[in-house]
């Protein structure tokens, strides 16, 4: 286990930022943390990194407690903060060299790592640029390069794609996958559910300082499925079908919009065969017939009672 958090409680004066929080990160895994602003994601990262002290609970990183002076553990960790953490006065190369130097003393090795990091984030043409001369996306890439240049085994990425154009976002996500392929375990926080779905092996939903649920994308969706929604698009309009569909067993609601019928069942699965049989009996031809799966946003809504961006 790379990280194990047990019953973590972190308070800021009267506010409980983390409440009996539990989390595990397995070796070689990308774990996504999703939750609205103020849910406790960044507090969790900073507590794991040993920057925040905490009231109760236990955090173990690489099977050891991470203290401010656990330098041997810190050497294996890379951190990419949410906001740009760069020196405006230093060039791309110098910024990476500066922060890499906090981890790697040997100047020859550092030079190699810095050049590798520049290549990794695709900033070869910009090595002599200062951050203010880079676009938002390129500056984000530099921010990442500063956190991963020393080739850490464990990487924390705190919303690294905020305010980034589509091209840079895709580049960054591919980069994270590559880091993972190279063996790094990753904790990734984001507001973008599609990113998390695409990137992460497991996802933890956080709200009000609590880990509501952790699991794979499928596990999370399965956890909220108590109904089934089937969508039908017919070749020809039929005036009676609405009534007939409502009379089917287990159907609790039927709506129609733009010639597409939405049929909601009170049981979770295996209704599509019954619908197909029903349409056949009625002699109706359908263009589309499919079960609509819940999205991660539906999971979030179901579990927390609010939209992710509330």
């Amino acid at each position, binding site marked *: 286990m790379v990280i194990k958090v047990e019953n973590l409680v972190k308070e800021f004066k009267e506010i409980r930022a983390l409440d009996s929080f539990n989390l595990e990160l397995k070796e070689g895994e990308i774990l996504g943390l999703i939750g609205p602003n103020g849910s406790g994601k960044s507090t969790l990262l900073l507590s794991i990194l*040993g920057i925040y002290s905490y009231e109760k609970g236990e955090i173990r990183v690489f099977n050891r407690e991470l203290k401010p002076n656990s330098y041997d553990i810190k050497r294996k960790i890379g951190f990419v903060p949410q906001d740009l953490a760069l020196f405006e006065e230093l060039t791309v190369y110098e910024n990476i060299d500066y922060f890499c130097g906090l*981890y790697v003393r040997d100047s020859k090795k550092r030079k190699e790592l810095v050049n590798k990091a520049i290549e990794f984030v695709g900033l070869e043409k910009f090595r002599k640029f200062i951050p203010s001369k880079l676009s938002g996306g390129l500056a984000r890439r530099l921010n990442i390069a500063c956190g991963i240049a020393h080739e850490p085994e464990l990487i924390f990425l705190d919303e690294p794609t905020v305010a980034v154009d589509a091209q840079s976002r895709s580049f960054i996500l591919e980069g994270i996958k590559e880091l993972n392929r190279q063996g790094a375990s990753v904790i990734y926080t984001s507001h973008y559910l599609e990113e998390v779905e695409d990137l992460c092996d497991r996802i933890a939903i956080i709200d009000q300082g609590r880990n509501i649920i952790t699991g794979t994308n499928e596990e999370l969706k399965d956890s909220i499925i108590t109904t089934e929604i089937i969508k039908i698009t017919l070749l020809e309009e039929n005036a009676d079908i609405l009534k007939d569909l409502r009379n089917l067993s287990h159907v609790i609601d039927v709506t129609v919009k733009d010639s597409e019928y939405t049929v909601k069942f009170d049981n979770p699965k295996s209704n599509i065969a019954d619908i197909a049989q029903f349409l056949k009996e009625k002699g109706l031809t359908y263009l589309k017939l499919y079960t609509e799966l819940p999205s991660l946003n539906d999971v979030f809504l179901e579990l927390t009672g609010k939209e992710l961006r509330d």
Partner: protein
Amino acid sequence: MKRILTYIKYELKVFLGNYASMFWMIAFPLLLLTIYTFFFSNLRFGEVELEKASVAYHEEAFMPLYFVEAPKEMPNMETLDKSYIENSLFKGKASEKDKALEALKTDEIDAYVDKDLSLVISKNGISQMIMDEVLTTAKQISSLKLPLTAYDFNRSYTENISEKYSPIDVVFYALFAMISLYGAYLSGTIGNRLIVRGKTIALRYASSPTSKARQVMLGVATSFLWSLFMVAITIAYSEFILKQHFFSPDANNIPLIMSAIIFGISWGLFLGTVIKKESSQTAAIISSLLIMSGISGMFSDGIRTLIQRTFPPILKINPVSLISDELLKVNMLGNYSTLAETVLKLTGYSIILIIISILHIRRKRA
């Protein structure tokens, strides 16, 4: 070593990375020195009217005053008239303290020297300053129970004084003292790197395996080199470009300047750690240096005189006053009587400030 030098290079680049910083950190003090030279240099070596100060003294203070001007030989103490004294600096007579203080209030006299050799003055001037120095020497001899012959009869406190020293020099030395504390601007940034106050740069440091102690040391080393550079460039600029002689090749300058630089770094470190907002830190550093320099006479020697009249202890504790006075004494008067005390005082201040700063940095874990 190479890594340390690389870091120092980066730190300096971050510190002086834009034209505004370069102007305020390098050009501004030199510009101020140029302006001062332009306006005041003609006053420096002009004829200084040494109007005799009018003094009163306690009978027991007669001897130190008598030796302000070195006698050719040891006088006959039994026949010496101790009720009146006159030399090229001052004239006066023995008086009871109450009467003397009254006379001082009404400006009938300029100074009163008490039994314990403490000096009460109504205004500042060369005569009073020299008297103060002589009295300090006399106090030291007296406290060591040395015989009267311990006085340096070969030393004249007044000889050629008008050629060496001008009251306007106070302004210049206060400026030099302020420049010696310029390391405060750089060391003021150390706290922001080490204390997480929502600063993302601090997050990078805090999550790295480089210890805080090492980071402080690197910051301090950079600040020290920066200060040393500023002092050197200022001296070189005044000596070779402005052609104004303020610094003599006296080794006693070294401990004085070193302790001043260390104090400046400690002051910046202290303000940078205890004040949260970066803009407030910079404002505090600028204003504190200007106030301390102003008190010691950087804007006008009149301000210094006013403070000396109204609340003299400030000058005894104000670091810039201590540094500027000592620079003046060492370089203009060749007087080292209070040098060790000043160096110790500055070192003491620095130690206290560093301890507070380190405790603050260590405790600031959110």
